[in-house]
């Protein structure tokens, strides 16, 4: 099984001829992802890493039967690219782009939901199902197929944890980076729900950070709905209030969003909380033992 992407994924790359888009298309193709095409307005006729380029998402979907799209276009054009993907009937859209204005994402979030589609990101590393499909910018080689589901708001911190898991012999079913912005499509709860329902996933690792209350919402969801073991880690215990820690959403404001509060709530929900990333594999092993 796994979640979100797998060997049936037929991937479209929006912004495929751009610097980021073409580089990561090559990386994804090399990993074995089935990249069926890409879109760059005016780019029809070209190809990138063997994938044909189309002028519009609509044309690309018609020609390739793409069922997942990944977006590498600049922040100013990314909301339009999401609308374009959803309107062309793509059911799952991954937006890697960083720096989209928060209020641009407010209607996008609702629109995607109304149309029954799913959005991952923006400002996220993407999603990988090891051995099947890498749809994102994460280094593929650190992953191993396995049964640990991983969901995280962060990029490199996720790689850190994945690397630790792999070294400890714990492969991953799927690893999902939900992104560090205040308004994101797929939430912790959404990913938890998918992992809970996924036959291949035996335990879940959830990596949060300061800012917002999505970890608290996830904790409540875990308490109610998740029967699989969950191991957690929260970054930013030393972060001061009122300061944005890199990610637009990583800010303690008005006393909410502190790491301490998130750790407390998750612990209460039965999540094994790691003090540092390197503790995660041990806690996972203990949980599935």
């Amino acid at each position, binding site marked *: 099984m796994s979640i979100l992407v797998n060997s049936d994924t037929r991937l479209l790359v929006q912004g495929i001829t751009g610097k980021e888009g073409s580089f990561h298309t090559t990386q994804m193709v090399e990993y074995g992802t089935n990249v069926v095409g890409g879109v760059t307005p005016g780019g029809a006729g070209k190809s990138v890493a063997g994938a044909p380029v189309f002028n519009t998402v609509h044309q690309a979907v018609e020609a390739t039967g793409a069922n997942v799209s990944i977006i590498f276009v600049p922040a100013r054009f990314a909301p339009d690219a999401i609308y374009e993907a959803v309107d062309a009937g793509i059911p799952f859209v991954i937006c890697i782009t960083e720096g989209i204005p928060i209020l641009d994402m407010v209607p996008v979030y609702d629109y995607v939901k109304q149309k029954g589609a799913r959005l991952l990101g923006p400002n996220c590393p993407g999603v990988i199902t090891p051995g099947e499909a890498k749809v994102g910018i994460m280094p593929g080689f650190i992953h191993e197929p396995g049964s640990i589901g991983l969901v995280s708001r962060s*990029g490199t911190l996720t790689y850190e944890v994945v690397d630790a898991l792999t070294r400890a012999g714990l492969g991953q079913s799927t690893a999902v980076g939900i992104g560090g912005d205040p308004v994101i499509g797929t939430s912790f709860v959404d990913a938890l729900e998918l992992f809970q329902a996924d036959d291949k996933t035996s335990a879940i690792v959830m990596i949060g950070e300061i800012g917002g209350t999505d970890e608290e919402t996830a904790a409540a969801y875990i308490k109610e709905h998740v029967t699989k073991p969950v191991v957690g880690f929260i970054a930013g215990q030393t972060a001061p209030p009122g300061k944005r820690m890199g990610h637009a959403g990583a800010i303690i404001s008005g006393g909410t969003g502190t*790491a301490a509060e998130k750790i407390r709530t998750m612990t209460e929900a039965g999540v094994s909380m790691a003090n540092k990333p390197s503790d995660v594999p041990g806690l996972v092993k203990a949980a599935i033992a």
Partner: protein
Amino acid sequence: MNVHEYQAAEILAARGIPVNVGKVATTPAEAEAIAAEFGKLVAIKAQVHIGGRGKAGGIKLAKTPAEAKEAASQILGMDIRGHTVNKVLVVPGVDIAREFYLGVVLDRPNRVPVLMASAEGGVDIETVAAESPEKIIMARADPYLGLRDFQARDVGFALGLEKELINPFTAIASRLFKAFVEMDATLAEINPLIVTGSGEMMALDSKMSFDDNALFRHPGLEDLRDLAEENATELEARGHGISYVKLDGNIGCIVNGAGLAMATMDAVKLHGGEPANFLDVGGGASADQVATAFQLVTSDENVQAILINIFGGITRGDVVAQGIREALGRVDVKVPIVVRLSGTNAEQGRALLAEAGLTAYGTMDEAAQQVVAAAA
């Protein structure tokens, strides 16, 4: 990006919200002259990008111009939680009958902006939210239509406003919301929103913050930036695409990725040290970026040792190591440097660093322990 109270008030006034119009003074003499011009009781208010200035003595009342001068001389130059007061706002005293809180923020769980109001005005809204959440009235915006007039009106009635105050309140709330949306704010707040003795509604204190990602479409906003209020290093870092936040410790951190950077700070703390900063060099970790990062981190005099934590992903570890070597050739770093390099081509990278006399570790824990020891 934050602006001062007087700037927020000007923005809201330009959008038709009645504000208590004052004038800015940078010297006690100016404050005296403004007080004389108003010819009545005035309030002298410190203009700093930090809350809690009232408790810190940053707001004083003055009955006469002489008193205003005296008050201003006490407030100007004052340090409020690390912020030096360079400007005061002098506003005429007003007759306050009632105080309210009115604000617009992003409701993150629901992914829409929300109008918040409370009859407990003039006090810290976070305290109200924590202690008596039922006293906060909320109206969530529609993701497309925003806050509709009836919602603002509903909030007004829920606040217990009299019939005569409903239209003025609705206009203020609608305009505050429009200001929030049209200017890509992350916060737009009036606290307190008052009713004067003669029954007029007025914003007595205004606050706004803006989404950095949207500044490109509000070119005028950059002009409102008070460089004196911003950490020069943080500003410079932003110019280089680096996220940097100064902290109080003595261990400088240079990390790729925001989440890993936070985890690195936490690891330093966990091993008994104190991080001097948050720093995310971004994806590439090129020689240029690393050199800039060294300059930023070493500009902090407290820094006794530097921890570089790189997880090589798409970026190869050997390339990063080369970048670090090049950067060290350009920047003269006088404190010990501890490197942690992992991921793609990490071993080659560590070898390259060893040649340059740098010990590179394979795990964050080891590196954190070493850097704490080095800074001691």
